[in-house]
């Protein structure tokens, strides 16, 4: 997939691993600050702004404080798994970013370097596999703590993440159908070629993916594993010091990865809209920018400034989704647990399946009619918009928040008893 010599490949990969890993951790640190600042601004406060200019050194101060704090071990906890759990939580979270392309290939004197740590041909499967591994850390933390709140948090985390994994996978299938591949670099390339970001032709898949991502990252309104109002802090109740920080770092890197995935899958990744100069893809060992009408590949012209520009585009798209994560967190209250399960199994799963059917049928018809290019995207956009409209219309009628309507008779019975009591009490006061 590239023209580097084995040595250059080894060196460039090592540099990329180091850079991506440290950049991820650095961004995660900044995200903790941004989270607090966004929270403060939404609540009409200013947030931490004292440590360094604009509070930029606050994460460093927090980190130092956490390292100096006492490590506590509950006497009844299973020590091995209690120690293992934070590591299990943080490792998959830190590994996922390896398959996400973050800029256009970079031209160097030793050859052209892809701006992705591992351009493996099964990128999206790798992402899904690691996403499912994330639940083990959380569940082990809850179980090994030997604390009822932690245990409940762990239970909730496992059932929630298992449920929404299904919806996550189903929302990805339309992307795979449209791209005809499971490589993340290929998704970017296909979106450049189609001229549409997948958010338009696959709008419903995008909505389902966003919802499932919120559930997978345990963010509000799906933060039932933490649920501080009911479960103290859920699965990490018993953790202190750096082990607690590990869970926080894991959560924030999950958010970062989910945002980067949304940007890559649905907003064209690092590609810059309305500009074909950044179209680059490894095609049979050659970096191409497109095909001539005769099907001949055209060589691409990578450059440092293009890499930087595309990286900025990628950072902007990812940053947008990170902000959306925080914005939603400080807007929506937490779901009730049955509502989470109801949404996951009774709404997301059937909608995801039906959408796959609709989209597969549309793509089949369009392929049979040999429709391509702009018209192909436009028809898919129209079909998806219609599906999204129906989805919103159906969901938007009290079918989500109050649960099953079958409970309504019970509720009205309770209300009658209540109002009768109130009437009796009010009458008694008057006498």
């Amino acid at each position, binding site marked *: 997939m590239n023209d580097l010599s084995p040595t250059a490949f080894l060196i460039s990969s090592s540099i990329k691993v180091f850079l991506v890993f440290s950049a991820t951790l650095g961004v995660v640190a900044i995200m903790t600050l941004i989270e607090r600042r*966004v929270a*403060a*601004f*939404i*609540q*009409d*406060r*200013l947030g931490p702004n004292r440590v360094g200019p604009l509070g930029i050194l606050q994460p460093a101060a927090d980190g130092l404080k956490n390292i100096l704090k006492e490590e506590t071990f509950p006497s009844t906890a299973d020590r091995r798994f209690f120690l293992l759990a934070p590591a299990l939580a943080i490792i998959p979270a830190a590994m996922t970013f390896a398959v996400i392309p973050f800029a256009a290939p970079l031209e160097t004197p030793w050859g052209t370097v892809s701006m992705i740590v591992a351009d493996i041909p099964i990128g999206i499967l790798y992402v899904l596999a690691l996403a499912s591994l994330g639940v083990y850390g959380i569940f082990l933390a809850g179980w090994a703590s030997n604390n009822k709140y932690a245990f409940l948090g762990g239970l909730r985390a496992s059932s929630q993440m298992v449920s929404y994994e299904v919806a996550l996978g189903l929302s990805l299938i339309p992307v795979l159908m449209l791209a005809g591949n499971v490589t993340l670099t290929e998704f970017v390339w296909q979106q450049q070629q189609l001229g549409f970001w997948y958010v338009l032709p696959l709008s419903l898949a995008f909505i389902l993916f966003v919802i499932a991502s919120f559930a997978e990252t345990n963010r509000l309104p799906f933060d039932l594993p933490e649920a501080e109002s009911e479960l103290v802090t859920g699965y990490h109740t018993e953790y202190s010091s750096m082990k607690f920080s590990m869970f926080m770092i894991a959560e924030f890197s999950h958010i970062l990865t989910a945002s980067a995935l949304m940007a890559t899958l649905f907003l064209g990744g690092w590609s810059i809209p309305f500009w074909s100069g950044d179209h680059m893809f490894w095609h049979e060992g050659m970096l191409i920018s497109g095909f001539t009408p005769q099907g001949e590949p055209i060589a691409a012209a990578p450059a440092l400034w293009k890499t930087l520009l595309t990286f900025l585009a990628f950072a902007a798209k990812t940053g947008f989704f990170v902000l959306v994560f925080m*914005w*939603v967190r*400080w*807007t*929506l209250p937490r779901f009730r647990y049955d509502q989470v399960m109801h949404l996951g199994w009774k709404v997301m799963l059937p909608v995801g399946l039906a959408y796959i059917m609709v989209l597969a049928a549309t793509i089949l018809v369009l392929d049979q009619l040999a429709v391509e290019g702009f018209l192909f995207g436009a028809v898919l956009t129209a079909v998806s918009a219609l599906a999204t409209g129906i989805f*919103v219309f159906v*969901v*938007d*009628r*009290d*079918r*989500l*928040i*109050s649960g099953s*309507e079958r409970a*309504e008779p019970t*509720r009205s019975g309770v*209300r009658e008893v*209540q*109002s009768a*009591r*109130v009437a009796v*009490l*009010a009458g*008694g*006061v008057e006498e």
Partner: protein
Amino acid sequence: MPATVKVLRRPAPGQTSYIRATLKGMALTFRHLVSPDKVTVQYPEEQPDLSPRWRGTHRMEVHADGRPKCVACGLCPTICPANCIRLVGGEDDEGNRYPIVYEIDEFRCIFCGMCQEVCPVEAIHVGVHFENAEYTRDRFVYDLDRLMEQDHPTTLLWDPSDPLSE
């Protein structure tokens, strides 16, 4: 159950909208996110805006020659609900009464301002002031000299004849 229970009717199915409510909520939080009106006061650089009727730690008014205005009449220790004022009065050669000991325990004080209200010569005042930090607890018993040294503005008491301070 108290007699005044507020019973919220659950909206009938078909009347509520979760998605629109969510979007409205998001719009609201976004307006607050970008709004420049923040309530935070950047305290040490920026002083909070205290009401003229703020009742903080006391100060004793002094005559031009440096004597306290207090005539040791004993009204303030009598009215003080927290019993935090210790007053020992004396009389000089000309028959003027003056305080020999005048101490206020600011820890016991509840800052009701009744000492100021009751004072016939407008000597003791509660003040518009809140920065009282000390390194030791005994520093919070303010003696006469300390009370006379204070220079923060005195509290404007509520006037029954002008209830809205107009």
